């Protein structure tokens, strides 16, 4: 009988494969954001030619998902696309950068979730869009947050023991963010 019971170490410890899978997911989502930073081009972010970020943001007005959000985009975002464009570009570039190296991953997973909500509210009803693209993006960020994916083959996993031992208040914040 005892021979058929697996060793507790094998039962209780997470498989190395699951950690590696989380790392692959994290890097994949990072590359998603990195690529999205490539087509946000200043200074007008496509306003003059009605393309790029300006075009996709205007889809929130043309094909509304949530009326208050559409009104916000029409009256605040589009007239000030140069300002919002820089904000989106820097935010998405930072999302790609931090998720790539797995640093403060839980914080950036929340940021990524919020940014995906904004994108979803802009383009969910636009023609030829596959709604599950955005649902899957949201779910992927839930997994990155819930599993603290930066601890698997990311810098969070390397740094957390040092942050834990450090008396600095900022280290406690970093522990929460990772």
């Amino acid at each position, binding site marked *: 009988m005892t021979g058929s019971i697996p060793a507790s170490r094998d039962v209780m410890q997470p498989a190395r494969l699951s950690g590696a899978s989380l790392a692959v997911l994290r890097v994949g989502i*990072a*590359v998603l*954001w*990195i*690529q999205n*930073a*490539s*087509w*946000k*081009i*200043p*200074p007008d972010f496509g306003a003059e030619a009605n393309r790029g970020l300006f075009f996709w943001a205007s889809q929130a007005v043309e094909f509304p998902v949530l009326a208050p959000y559409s009104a916000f985009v029409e009256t605040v975002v589009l007239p000030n696309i140069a300002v919002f464009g820089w904000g989106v*570009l820097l935010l*998405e*570039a*930072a999302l*790609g*950068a*931090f998720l*790539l*190296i797995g*640093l403060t991953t839980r914080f950036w997973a929340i940021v990524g979730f919020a940014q995906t909500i904004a994108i979803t509210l802009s383009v969910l009803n636009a023609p030829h869009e596959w709604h599950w693209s955005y649902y899957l993006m949201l779910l992927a960020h839930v997994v990155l947050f819930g599993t603290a994916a930066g601890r698997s083959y990311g*810098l969070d996993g*390397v*740094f957390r*023991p*040092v*942050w834990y*031992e*450090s008396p600095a208040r900022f280290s406690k914040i970093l522990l929460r963010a990772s």
Partner: protein
Amino acid sequence: MIAPSMHRATLVLGIAAVVSLLFALTEGLEQTFNLIHVRGASIAVIAVLGVVAIVAGARRLPVLGLIAGIGFVGCALLQLVQLGQAFNLLGGDGSTMSLLGGLGIGLVSVWLVGRASAHIVEGTQ
């Protein structure tokens, strides 16, 4: 003494930089495969700084890792100010900036946390 895991992290970041050069091969392909724009002078920058980081990690030279990190961050900032400009020294875009920034922030943070780990170890001895 800096924890060995910090040197390993520097080494892995250097290897990641060199591996990212594979994206130079996707130039000209559809965006389905051309995920990160690594082209022009950014190829040389990533190759050189990536090798510097690998040497820093393998030989346990944290200052060299910091130099590579500062180099990556500097190049990311250079790419940032040249986004949308006709003159683009590194030949990249927002994706190049994000990649360079991530590698640079990673290497600099490894140096910073490595220093902190050394202080903690010394403080507890």
